């Protein structure tokens, strides 16, 4: 596959459920109650329990790591948290859709921009990941 600006590298639709939020709280040690208690979330004016921003961020990066294969090729990753992902207390959860597109190509690296939405709403802004070209044949 030729890698040039505009090349779509992949897309991903991942459902974040309450069960996964609990798992991520434990794994990341981020026990902020807005990620597991509706009471705490609504006290802050949120619609309900929201996903950890870092969980959404980590999920979106999969578009890139699935593409390069080797996660060690990722050199830089940044994003803004623009809109919370509200996760309902049901079996379906909230579906986060991620689409990765090459936005810059340099001699030794490729930059990918990822569009991350939930229910048509952009939830992360300026999501870019730089990967080493070494991993890309």
């Amino acid at each position, binding site marked *: 596959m030729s890698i040039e600006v505009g090349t779509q590298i992949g897309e991903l639709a*991942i459902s974040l459920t309450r069960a*996964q939020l609990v*798992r*991520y709280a*434990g*794994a*990341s*040690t*981020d026990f*902020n109650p807005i990620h597991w208690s509706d009471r705490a979330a609504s006290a*802050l004016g949120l619609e309900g329990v929201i996903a950890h*921003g*870092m*969980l959404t*961020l*980590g*999920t979106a*990066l*999969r578009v890139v*790591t*699935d593409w390069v*294969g*080797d*996660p*060690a090729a*990722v*050199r*830089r*990753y*940044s*994003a*803004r*948290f623009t809109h919370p992902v509200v996760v309902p207390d049901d079996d379906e959860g909230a579906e986060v859709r991620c689409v990765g597109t090459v936005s810059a190509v340099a001699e030794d690296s490729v930059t990918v921009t990822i569009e991350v939405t939930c229910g048509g709403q952009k939830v992360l802004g*300026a999501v870019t990941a730089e990967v080493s070209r070494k991993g890309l044949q």
Partner: protein
Amino acid sequence: MGRTYPPTAPYEVSAAKIAEFAAALGDPNPAYSGEAPVAPPTFAAVIGAAAWDGLFADPELDLSLERVVHADQTFVWHRPLRAGDTVTGALNIDKVRCRGAMEIVGVTVRVATLEGEPVVDSSSTFVHTRATS
């Protein structure tokens, strides 16, 4: 501003914790399991969280975790974090801006091995809202 906190207690990255973190992300990438697993890139958040604890516990700053919103995040990796690495995170306050009852705080946690080899820098911007009385 410019304040640097003492590094966090040494943290040993285990294959089991890598597997737990990858499962929490729902990511089956084979690099996260097997004989010599690497950590998912955003695993740096685990060490970052420990470093943030020091920031939020600083009585001089009087920041409350319940009043903080994470606004943006940047990771820069020098090399992947691997099972068997023992690392610490040193937090530096890069910038503080005040806007009324809001403070915008930029911090960087530098994660390095005990020998001082840099692994990953994790920069975050937080928006903190002071309680109004």
